[in-house]
């Protein structure tokens, strides 16, 4: 279907099903139960899942396929956010022109930065992208204040022209972002017994955009172009010796992944019309690297999983505090209960970054393929008999 083979169609359908049913899947616990804090089915968080999923999918096209480790990808996300907010300020509150502009601008930005940075590879490439991103961050914070509104961040005001829309609504407030009248903020609640599910318009817009982005990524992975990118990763020298200029391919990959980042930035601004410079800081670039590696670089589903996992941790783990822990371990004898809570305490709440760091190190050390490789290993464990049969045919190593 859609020009994909059977395996990829299944993958796409599974992802589509999961994202579209996310409000149910992420809210497995009744609202009043003690486990309700593990529910992630509220619109704000779900939107972040899919938006960072798009960001990570795009990053993976560059890093997973070509092996070029960019440490400045957040710059494109920031540029996308700024352009989207400017579109809301100047043209209208419809999100389509805003997203189109943010993708285009981020693409142009990526073209310039990529053209310069891709002259080098390895660590030099990482440092160059880092340098460009930090430059954009510093400029957005200081000199470009007329465009970026500096530290405060770019916001909508009542005085904005909005040529195709209205500067202010009838009751004198700032209009809401919409898709041809469908307001991004609108949501309906569905209450079934003790459960409550929220369906937000904004989430479904993001989810559909992500599915399209995911589909495009599958097509890129399976195309001859994707093959060429993989060749660059496995041995760029050999590719050059065959007389092939690899630069246009890496540049194309860089621009595509920059446009994905711009798309994510545009969507982020569409859900909440704000843009700040901190979105471009290098720690934000580091975060997308973490997501991609954690999920599994070079795999299709990995980055989405990684993005979801990190955002889930960030929002859910950081909410757990000592009282909650005491509640959980109340069945233990007093002394042991306090000890258990004291041991777990540094890893939760404000300390969730520590958990993330440890998890990330463990993944890099033991599971270089990320969560996806972990999943595959478990699968192999269950179907070992079958695997030993196939071993003979798999034993042929490619000539290196």
């Amino acid at each position, binding site marked *: 279907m859609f020009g994909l083979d059977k395996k990829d169609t299944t993958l796409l359908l599974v992802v589509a099903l999961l994202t579209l049913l996310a409000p149910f899947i992420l809210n497995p616990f009744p609202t009043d139960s003690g486990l309700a804090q593990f529910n992630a089915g509220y619109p704000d968080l779900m939107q972040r899942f899919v938006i960072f999923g798009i960001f990570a999918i795009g990053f993976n096209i560059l890093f997973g396929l070509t092996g070029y480790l960019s440490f400045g990808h957040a710059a494109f996300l920031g540029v996308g956010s700024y352009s989207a907010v400017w579109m809301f300020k100047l043209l209208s509150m419809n999100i389509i022109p805003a997203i189109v502009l943010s993708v285009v601008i981020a693409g142009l930005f990526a073209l310039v930065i990529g053209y310069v940075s891709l002259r080098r590879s390895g660590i030099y490439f990482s*440092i160059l992208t880092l340098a460009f991103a*930090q430059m954009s961050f510093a400029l957005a914070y*200081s*000199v470009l204040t007329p465009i970026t509104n500096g530290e405060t961040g770019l916001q909508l005001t009542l005085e904005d022209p909005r040529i195709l829309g209205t500067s202010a609504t009838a009751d004198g407030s700032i209009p809401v972002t919409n898709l041809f009248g469908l307001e991004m903020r609108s949501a309906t609640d569905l209450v079934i017994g003790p459960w409550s599910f929220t369906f937000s318009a904004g989430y479904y817009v993001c989810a559909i955009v992500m599915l399209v982005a995911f589909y495009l990524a599958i097509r890129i992975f399976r195309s001859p172009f994707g093959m060429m990118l993989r060749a660059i990763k496995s041995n760029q020298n050999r590719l050059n010796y065959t007389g092939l200029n690899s630069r246009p391919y890496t540049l194309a990959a860089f621009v595509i992944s920059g446009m994905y980042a711009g798309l994510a930035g545009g969507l982020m601004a569409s859900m909440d019309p704000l843009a700040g410079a901190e979105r471009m800081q290098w720690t934000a670039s580091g975060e997308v690297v973490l997501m991609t590696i954690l999920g599994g670089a070079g795999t299709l589903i990995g980055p989405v999983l990684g993005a979801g996992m990190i955002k889930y941790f960030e929002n859910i783990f950081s909410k757990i505090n000592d009282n909650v822990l005491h509640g959980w371990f109340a069945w233990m004898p007093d002394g042991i209960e306090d000890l258990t809570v004291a041991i777990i305490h540094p890893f939760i709440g404000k300390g969730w970054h520590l958990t993330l*760091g440890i998890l990330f190190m463990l993944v890099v050390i033991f599971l*270089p393929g990320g969560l996806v490789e972990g999943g595959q290993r478990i699968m192999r464990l269950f179907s070992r008999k079958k695997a030993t049969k196939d071993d003979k045919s798999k034993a042929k190593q490619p000539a290196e």
Partner: protein
Amino acid sequence: MDAIILQILNGLDKGSAYALIALGLTLIFGTLGVVNFAHGALFMIGAFCAVTLQRLLNLSFETIDPDKTDFLGQPLKVKTPYVESWFGPDVGATIIDWSVPLAILFAIPIMLVIGFVMERGLIKHFYKRPHADQILVTFGLAIVLQEIIKANFGANPIQTPAPELLSGVATLMDGVVYPVWRIVYFCFAALIIGGVFAFLQFTTFGMVVRAGMADRETVGLLGIDIDRRFTIMFGLAAAVAGLAGVMYGPINAPNYHMGMDFLVLSFVVVVVGGMGSLPGAVLAGFVLGILESFASTTWATTTIPGINQIIIYLVAIIILLTRPRGLMGRAGVMED
């Protein structure tokens, strides 16, 4: 003229910090071939060694002074640090006052141990893996170290004042007034850098290490246990970063993310200097520090707005594109 001298001086102290961190990074890269993103965290741990020592020295017990009362009319509680009761009030107060310089002695063994443990426990397993993996695992380690410090010391900066004698300002010549501690920092950095170079140049151990940097395999074939020496060099690099952190405390109060702030710039410095070149790292550190300070002058910021924010990155981009090996890079090191 005075203004120019002042700017150069201003650049020197930041440049010293860059140079010290970049020196350690280059030592690690040149010997082990590992790109260490956790080096900034080592710098930060050094600074927190000073904080720890300061807290240890200030540990005190309470006594009740029956002659005086506090503002509530209760008998006044007097806190006396143990150090003061052991060595007498004058000597004790001096020891507390000099806690930052004393922290150097305290930090060296700690940093060496941290360096050894890190190399043997983690980095060793990453020699054969691609540079991207090394960057990622050390990046993860940096997050972990930073969060451990944050959990123990909180997120706010902690003041570590310089000793009374070395705080305040000095008038160097007429019109040039400069904080004493920054001069101390520069001299200290020069001493450490000189010490590292002398160690590598004039000792047998240093000779073996240099030989190992040039050709690790041949040195190994000659029957020398080069790995053990490289582990010691890693510890040394960690100690250099730690000392840079200890002494930096009085200039900028240590906080848990100071390592990350310096790391990005130090990497730029290393790359500009040339991966694997020790003199290059030191030179680039000072040059970029001074350039940054000149770019912060009013004249520069009015001519090109925002230049002070981006100068280092701009220089790095230009150098990387025009001189692929950096300022003093050796042929054959990370050229791709």
